[in-house]
């Protein structure tokens, strides 16, 4: 099996995610972009597992999913709390932790 197409797709998705994190101000969108990056990584893991015929990559993908699910719970909770206090979900406005 030729993994090139999968890996290229994974790279494209990862790049879209990274650019989303870097460029979008809305916290929800940035958060979704992080999910995109994680899923791109998952795709790469699964592709690897398929190429070498071993289950290690699949197992890693499961771990990533579990971590992503936990992260979503905490992340969304934080975003909602911020939104409640500031009436905005912009990541640039929440910049109090600085010099």
């Amino acid at each position, binding site marked *: 099996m030729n993994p090139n197409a999968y890996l290229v797709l994974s790279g494209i998705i990862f790049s879209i995610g*990274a650019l989303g994190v870097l460029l979008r*101000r809305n916290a929800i969108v940035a958060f979704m972009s992080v999910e995109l990056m994680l899923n791109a990584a998952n795709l790469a893991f699964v592709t690897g597992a398929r190429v070498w015929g071993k289950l290690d990559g699949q197992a890693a993908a499961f771990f990533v999913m579990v971590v992503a699910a936990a992260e979503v719970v905490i992340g969304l909770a934080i975003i909602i709390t911020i939104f409640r206090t500031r009436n905005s979900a912009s*990541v*640039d406005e929440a910049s109090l932790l600085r010099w």
Partner: protein
Amino acid sequence: MIAAIIALPALSAAILLSLGNRTNKFGPWLAIGASTGSFLIGFWQFLQMLSRPEEERAVVTTVYEWLAVPAAGFKVNFALQLDQLSISFVLLITFVGTLIHIYSLGYMSHDENPRRFFAYLNLFVAAMLLLVLADNYLLLYVGWEGVGLASYLLIGFWQHKPSAAVAAKKAFVANRVGDFGLSLAIMTMFIVLGSVSFSDVNEGIKGAPAWVSLTLGLLLLLAACGKSAQFPLQSWLLDAMEGPTPVSALIHAATMVTAGVYLIVRSASIFNASEIAQTAVVVVGTISLLMGAVIAAAKDDIKKSLAGSTMSQIGYMILAAGLGPIGYVFAILHLITHGFFKAVMFLGAGSVMHATNDNVDMRRYGGLPKVMIFTTITFFIGYLAIIGIPPFAGFYSKDHIIEAALSHSWWAGAAVLFGAGLTAFYMTRIVVMTFVSKPRWEDDVHPHESPLSMTLPMIVLAIGATSIGIILTQNHIFEHWLEPVTGFVEPEPPFSIQTITIITLSVVAIGVLAAIWQYRKVAKVAPKNVSFVVTAARKDLYGDVMNEALLMRPGQATTKFLNIFDKSVVDGFVNGLGALTTGISARLRRSETGYVRSYAMSIVVGTAILVIALLIVRL
């Protein structure tokens, strides 16, 4: 038993100081008792010593092993040596000391806290006895420091007076310079001779190279200069008169200041081995005796005038001690007679001050014989003794020093003769201004004779000042007595003894007549238009100015320089390091913007760099 001589006053001082105000009632009596007990034991020891044959008179008792460093071969015992020299001192210290304790009972009766005063006096007596009874230099050093401490505490006894506090500090600092000499001498002894006990040093110095005795001699002379207020460390003694008068009599006239003479005589073997050191001692003694006499002749403060006289008389003793075996005995003889006549005069001065509301200005005295006859007579006896009129004590001791000095060199002889004339001048001046001249009292002063507790010691001391010289020189008793310890060589002056006596007495007579003529009328206020000698002498011959220029200013300059060095170089380095760190962090913290996206950017860039680096390494 010998240790008890020291232990009694030491114990009494400890009780009075540690139990504090609870001992106020009986404190002075306990102190007098301790001092008297010390004297009685000393006298008993003296009688026992007399009963032994000459060779067995010196005894050493080891109380306990004090310090021992076996690896370095260092061993010092707490050992007391009682020989003819130390018993002479023991008797002088405890006898005069006891009398002055009794005198203080009357003198300090109006004071707030006589108990503390008596405790310090006892402390002094104990330390001084330790100084003269020690059988090694290190133990002597303990006593040496002890008397310095007691002197400091007693000069500053009225510490609420700033002048007294400053004088105490000055005395302490000047003494430290001398102590430094003594400690260096002790270290040198241990390093070169391997021991610090008198007997070992006496033996060891015989085979030692010349530089050892020279170094030790000069260091010990420095020590003696500090303690005995000799040139160039003399300036503290005049200021020390801020202390209560009994202190001036006991510590700064009769005993402590003579410790330097004791040190030199005790170290006779060292000085005998070095002619240069001996000459240095003679020169220091000569300068001091003339300086002291000139200062004494110009001061209007009776105590300062007597202090100048003390410095001058100790100059005589130091000079005699520098003459070698012809002088040691006479130095000690003069020390003992001086202890009596100077103490009686200081006590007399105290009595006069007591009667005139603590006034010390001789220009406001006069006409006192009518109101205080005992003080006048006893002071006059002291006066006759110090100027050397036979048969009073000073005549015998001073005449012998003049003979010894004349057989040493013409200049030493001329100096002591001139000094004798000056002594007669300034003492006559004191007597005329204080007693003989017309009353010039302050308006509210009503002089009265002092109580018996004060006059009695003066009378006893005056009897001593009258008789002790003739007793001690009868049939050369004192020379024979001290000869086993210090050695003795009969002086051979270039003139016959009768001639010398006549010359001395005529010089003295000139001094007396000059003073009587000069002070036939005494002004109430010191005249201003005086010669430069008097101006200089009133300022202690610029002793303080010299100290200031030679020691204080360079010291201050060094401090200033070090301060600047510390501020600019040391602080500069440390502060610069701090400033550098703060500066860098001030710039670095700018990168913490608080924008999540810029952090994300740095993570991406960092990861990219890591990946590229890994790829490059792989290739």
